[in-house]
């Protein structure tokens, strides 16, 4: 099997994973925008973490980054 075929075969299985990542990212970002204060007081840092670290970024924000109102 060559590389192209492998990737083509994998693709349908990767879509749900990608959707999961996008959903977590969007939920985390929406929460971040709405929240007045976050841990560490830097929203930009959280955006970088949420967008660039797959799966773990949004999870860490939702678990530890939110400051109660």
């Amino acid at each position: 099997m060559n590389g192209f075929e492998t990737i083509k075969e994998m693709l349908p299985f990767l879509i749900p994973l990608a959707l999961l990542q996008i959903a977590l990212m969007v939920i985390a970002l929406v929460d971040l925008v709405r929240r007045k204060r976050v841990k560490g007081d830097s929203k930009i840092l959280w955006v970088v973490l949420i967008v660039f670290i797959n799966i773990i970024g949004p999870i860490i924000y939702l678990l530890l980054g939110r400051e109660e109102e």
Partner: protein
Amino acid sequence: MTGLAALLKKELKEQLKTYRLLIIGGVFLFFGLSTPLMLKYLPEILKLAGEDVVIEFPTPTALMSLQEYSSTLAQVGVLIAVLIAMGAIARERERGTAAMVLSKPVGRGAFVVAKLAAMSTSFIIALGVASVASYVYTVLLFGEANASGFLGLNLLLALFFIVSLSVTLLFSSLFRSQLAAGGVALAILIGQAVLSGVPWIGDFTPGALISWGTGLLSGAAPSAWTAVAASLAIVALCLYLARLSLKRKEI
């Protein structure tokens, strides 16, 4: 147990509002989907990347996929259980919301039970969704898999997570600092995992639930009902002690 129903409703809402269900579900689902996928395609991806390097992988099977998924989940699940439960009571006391809730006509037992029940519900839903997804991927990628064994494994995993939650909840009621609560709980849970390998004593640790579960998959499983009984006793004991510690404390 006065006010249990009202408290439970409040705690379940809180699970959604604080993204608990989403966090647990997201992490579990990620491992549920990626484990079979990695097992199937990693050898081929490595083959594409490496030029002359020949690495022999054993041909992956459905059994391997489900076994790897569940052992990953058991480890990750304990970590998340500790992270989620460590603040459950400690944080509420710190912020004063525990005092507010307990000033109403609700029992301290109900307060503790509602918390454990709500967190357990989140874990069970997340585990259910992730396991179904992982099973579907495994069947699609590798063919037939042992469904009844996998169901049994999941029930044992759920009990294992409830034990992890209740141990952490107990320390969350004992300590003011949630980090201290989480640290001690994690140390104990890792300690029991080490003990679960010891003959005889191991039969009474929650860790034996996992080895029974993975054994169910391959069909050769010495049952570990002693571990089930011990786990239920641990949950009851943790709830009782947590209630006691809240009764004795100034909230």
